[in-house]
């Protein structure tokens, strides 16, 4: 995962000071078959309620916020990964039927299924005798 500094306008406060937010880029696997395109993203620590998948103008954006509870009474001794927000976006081609997109998150893995439009699916053409 790489870290990206993202600037956000803080509209609650009246100042125009942008607020920096650390956003992690999740690893994805993208596969395709004749029916649909499948996108699988690793977002450990993210659960059902805190993931958001949206499509706008053929841009698919998904983001999730990871949560964790530090164990009580313990002190952090070594850290190899950070916990925070994940976000990534992809531009979809016209092949994708954006109305039929389904997403599911389980065990920290987000799976997005992007069905292909009917006309695009491979059709077998019968050869007339």
């Amino acid at each position, binding site marked *: *995962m*790489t*870290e990206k500094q993202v600037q956000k306008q803080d509209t609650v406060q009246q100042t125009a000071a942008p607020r920096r937010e650390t956003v992690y880029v999740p*690893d*994805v*696997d*993208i*596969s*395709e*078959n*004749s029916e649909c395109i499948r996108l*699988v993203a*690793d*977002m*450990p*620590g*993210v*659960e059902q309620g805190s993931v958001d998948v949206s499509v706008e103008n053929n841009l698919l954006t998904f983001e999730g916020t*990871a*949560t*964790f509870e*530090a*164990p009580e*009474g*313990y*002190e*952090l*001794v*070594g*850290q*190899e*990964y*950070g916990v925070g927000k994940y976000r990534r976006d992809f531009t979809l081609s016209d092949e994708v039927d954006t109305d039929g997109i389904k997403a599911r998150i*389980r*065990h*920290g*893995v987000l799976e997005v299924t992007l069905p292909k439009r009917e006309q695009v699916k491979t059709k077998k053409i019968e050869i007339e005798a």
Partner: protein
Amino acid sequence: MFDLVTWPRNPWSIFDELESLQDDMNRLFTGQEVGGRGQRGAAWRRRRPSYPLMNVWSAEDGIVIDAELPGVDPKDVDISVLGDQLTLRGKVNPVQVAEGETYHRRERPAGEFARTLQLPFRAAADAVKANYKNGVLRLTVPRSEEEKPKRIQIEA
């Protein structure tokens, strides 16, 4: 950010790796960084030292380890404790290419992994608890009885 607390007894880092047994996991990444220290950035990602990534907390009676293991089947993970070594071993994201399916991108780690941590104390092996939630494996490893610090009274 990497905050390291040196253990009082001897300079010990929770991420002292024992020579193992890394695996096809590392062959996915070109080059391997020695020492297991994490550093953020694109270069780090290509030279990921170990899998899974862990965060460790410690207290007087034991330690808690959080390991990032998204999408793994608890049956595929083997946790074993021997004395003062904790080994996590398993298989993640086995490649299953169905008929007619092609991959455009494969970034998620896949393959077998094995990682051993050197603990600063002998663990009570039968009291280790493991919990898997949202892709994060939390291991609670208590010290074994003999190693618990004992209060010594000063005689008047």
